[in-house]
């Protein structure tokens, strides 16, 4: 009150005196404000720099155009003679002000908010004119005080083209002008990755990162914590988390870069167009969450099944089988009739495979077995047989033996030969081998399927088979496409030799899975069996070329084959020594342990995994094995429980089913206290895991059980 009367008095005095540039100055709590001009008179017919000078008490600040987590931008409202116009505030480079855990953007010390005021050409008709400004602001240290002032300044008007003398405030105003961000012609490419927003800047005279900071001019786009700025050659990369209050996608993100280095302040501005504008943003973000959550609705489940099947074609476990098929196509491609027949047979094989597997699974579940998708690979016997199959097919491709009709009834020669029967069995084989590679969006679709009536469940699995077979089947069914394939020739032998190797690699992987399931002894026995199989096939291959079969070779082949199969009964009865159940970081999951921790309101991270689940292994490598992850668990007191579904475990199947899942991976975070658990997506990133763990840890606990001091 007192200050306002004082200001009025001063303003009146200034008006009466009408001297050169007398300034209206007001001292409020923690802030002195003053209306200043660059020159002692305003020039008609041009833009004139004026400004609001802010002199903050030490430790106090006011705000930029985007105030950050709290606060308010300083607001200026001009009352001007008719015909005059005032531009918006030309904000100088802001500072990043940290208040506890929050970040604000603004100014401290002394600065000027510059404004360009344009006078009409006829303004010089009057000798003097009055500038009037209503300014309002919020000045804060930790606590805040709102302030406002009416400032007035009467100035002489100079004729157009004149250059009146500078005022004493001119250096401060010019210093502020020098700190305005300069516009750039940088190329700014914005991309989104989950909750991260990245902008790549390219162009001439990009600053280095010493003392560099970046600010979004618009609120509610980026989180207000400092972004990460990295210089990579000619590219300056900015990455920041999305604002918690991000609601609408802007046309472009307006960025201001500020460099405070060796006492100098430089600033730049650039604009990054938002890709896909309205389509992107929170809508798309929310969709990602839905996709990795549960899927409802038959149509969506079928669509995911189809997409999942298509994606399986790219999986490492399916690739060798597909390469076999591709080879078959090359051989039959130039007979459209045969190609079409084989295409259909392959499709039928894949669909049959999935439907039969699903029917077996449903029947077993109906009989009360707690099984889920991937159960095929939970049997060490089947894994060992698959390893044999891979080795045998590989040897055939390597030219060790030629496939004849003599071993009819065993899957391998059927699949590796030619003709519709082989195509059908290739489809079947693709389905068997593909099952562990549950692609990210297949999990929800299969979980949904298994909770549906049998007819619907089978439809989902059949669609999965169609998706898996589609790319190759289309090649066979559309002669125009098949014509693009190269003609058969001598190159095919080389091609076959090369294709053998993915099969050997798959065999190695299967033996490793077996080792995790049934232990080192089982793996060694299986490897011995594989050696016997190799010997058997070598013998078989060498006598194949003779015109008359010799009985000693036939006997040797038979004995070696028996020897190869001999370890299998033992393998299926072995089991791996339990892996350490407590290595300091995690403990083995049991329903009892989880229930006990939850009773005490402890935060828990549950990871359901299996050795044959490639998605699980990729996640462990990428997101669950870093030092940061371990540190987060330790510092937040989060318990890490790991459930291993490599072998059948009914309690894990039940747990998976409670989240409408029928397969791994499954990641669940239980918050401190009694809150509901959060299911994480099937594809993890370190940031995502860390954020989820932070959320879980920060949820309040009861005072009596507070864990941190």
């Amino acid at each position: 009150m007192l200050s306002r009367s004082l200001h009025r008095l001063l303003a009146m005095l200034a008006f009466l005196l009408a001297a050169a540039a007398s300034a209206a100055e007001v001292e409020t709590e923690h802030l002195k404000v003053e209306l200043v001009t660059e020159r002692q008179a305003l020039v008609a017919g041009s833009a004139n720099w004026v400004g609001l000078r802010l002199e903050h008490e030490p430790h106090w600040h006011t705000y930029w155009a985007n105030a950050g987590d709290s606060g308010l931008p300083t607001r200026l409202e001009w009352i001007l003679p008719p015909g005059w116009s005032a531009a918006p505030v030309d904000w100088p480079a802001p500072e990043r002000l940290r208040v506890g855990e929050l970040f604000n953007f603004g100014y401290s010390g002394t600065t000027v908010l510059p404004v360009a005021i344009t006078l009409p050409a006829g303004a010089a008709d009057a000798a003097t004119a009055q500038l009037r400004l209503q300014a309002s602001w919020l000045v804060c240290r930790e606590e805040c005080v709102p302030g406002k002032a009416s400032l007035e300044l009467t100035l002489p008007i100079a004729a157009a083209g004149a250059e009146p003398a500078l005022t004493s405030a001119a250096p401060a105003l010019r210093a502020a002008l020098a700190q305005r961000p300069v516009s750039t012609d940088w190329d700014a490419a914005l991309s989104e990755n989950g909750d991260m927003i990245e902008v790549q800047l390219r162009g001439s005279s990009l600053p280095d990162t010493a003392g560099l900071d970046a600010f979004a001019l618009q609120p509610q786009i980026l989180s207000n914590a400092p972004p990460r700025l990295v210089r990579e050659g000619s590219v300056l990369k900015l990455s920041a988390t999305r604002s918690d209050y991000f609601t609408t996608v802007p046309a472009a993100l307006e960025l201001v870069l500020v460099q405070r280095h060796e006492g100098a302040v430089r600033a730049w501005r650039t604009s990054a167009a938002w890709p896909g504008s309205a389509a992107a943003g929170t809508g798309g973000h929310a969709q990602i969450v839905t996709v990795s959550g549960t899927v409802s609705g038959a149509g969506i489940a079928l669509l995911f099944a189809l997409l999942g099947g298509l994606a399986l074609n790219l999986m490492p476990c399916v690739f060798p089988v597909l390469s076999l098929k591709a080879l078959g196509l090359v051989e039959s491609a130039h007979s459209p009739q045969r190609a079409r027949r084989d295409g259909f047979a392959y499709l039928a094989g894949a669909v049959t495979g999935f439907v039969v597997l699903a029917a077996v699974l449903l029947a077993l579940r109906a009989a009360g077995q707690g099984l889920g998708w991937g159960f095929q690979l939970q049997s060490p016997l089947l894994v060992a047989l698959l390893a044999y199959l891979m080795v045998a097919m590989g040897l055939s491709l390597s030219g060790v033996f030629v496939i004849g009709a003599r071993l009819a009834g065993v899957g391998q020669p059927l699949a590796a030969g030619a003709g519709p029967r082989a195509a059908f069995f290739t489809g079947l084989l693709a389905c068997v081998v593909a099952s562990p590679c549950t692609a990210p969006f297949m999990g929800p679709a299969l979980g949904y399927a298994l909770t549906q009536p049998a007819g619907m469940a089978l439809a989902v699995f059949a669609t999965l088979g169609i998706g898996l077979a589609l790319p190759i089947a289309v090649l066979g069914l559309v002669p125009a496409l098949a014509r693009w394939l190269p003609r058969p020739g001598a190159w095919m032998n080389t091609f076959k030799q090369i294709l053998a190797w993915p099969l050997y690699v798959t065999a190695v992987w299967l033996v490793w899975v077996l080792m995790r399931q049934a232990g080192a002894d089982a793996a060694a026995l299986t490897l011995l069996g594989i050696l016997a199989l190799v010997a058997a096939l070598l013998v078989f291959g060498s006598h194949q070329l003779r015109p008359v079969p010799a009985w000693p070779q036939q006997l040797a082949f038979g004995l070696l084959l028996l020897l190869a199969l001999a370890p299998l009964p033992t393998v299926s009865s072995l089991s791996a020594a339990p892996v350490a159940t407590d290595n300091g970081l995690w403990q083995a999951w049991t329903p009892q342990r989880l229930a006990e921790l939850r009773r005490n309101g402890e935060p828990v991270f549950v990871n359901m995994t299996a050795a044959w689940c490639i998605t699980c292994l990729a996640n462990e490598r990428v997101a669950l094995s870093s030092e940061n992850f371990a540190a987060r668990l330790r510092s937040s007191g989060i318990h890490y429980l790991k459930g291993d579904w490599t072998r059948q475990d009914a309690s894990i199947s039940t747990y998976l089913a409670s989240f409408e899942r029928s397969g791994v991976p499954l990641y669940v975070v239980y918050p401190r206290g009694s809150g509901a658990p959060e299911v994480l997506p099937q594809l993890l990133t370190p940031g995502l895991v860390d954020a989820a763990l932070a959320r879980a840890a920060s949820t309040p606990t009861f005072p009596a059980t507070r864990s941190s001091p």
Partner: protein
Amino acid sequence: MKLMSALLAAALSLTAAPLLAKVEIGQPAPAFRLSDSNGKTRTLDEFKGKTVVLEWTNAECPFVRKHYESGNMQAQQKEATKAGVVWLSINSGARGKQGDIDGEAANELIRDNGSAQTAYLLDPEGETGRAYGASVTPHMYIIDGEGVLRYRGGIDSILSADQADIPKATQYVRQALAELAGGKPVSVPVSQPYGCSIKYAAKS
């Protein structure tokens, strides 16, 4: 391909993690257990089945004063509680910071300004505030009867400390409560919160 995008995300997430938690609309709201101004222990669970409004407050903050001195906040509290909604004012300021009050002072404050919240909760450790990611006063949240978060953000649409702006602003909390009562989805579930920063206790 999967691995590549995961690695990319891994590289990106090396930036500083947010210090305050984030609560998502449509997700269960974090549970809490706090003493009210009368020393009684209050939990979110006890209000199951009722819509709950959380209002972060600090009586000395100019933005809070804007809505109390104009009577806007008390009017909305009365409307809400009359309609069976639970209104909890929460003070997450640390001991000794501006706006820090004990239960007795809070009760005096409630008497003086005629506020009509269901309870005034004291959170000097700031754990509840942090769990909700409350950054300013006033910062508003609405939780439905099932404990699911339906609104988070400012009390209204005009970011200012000026009482004159209140009639011009859209009152987001009032609007969301009306929509929830009518069984409709909340049309503005997230808005920019504005106000004074919450003076949290340094993290132990």
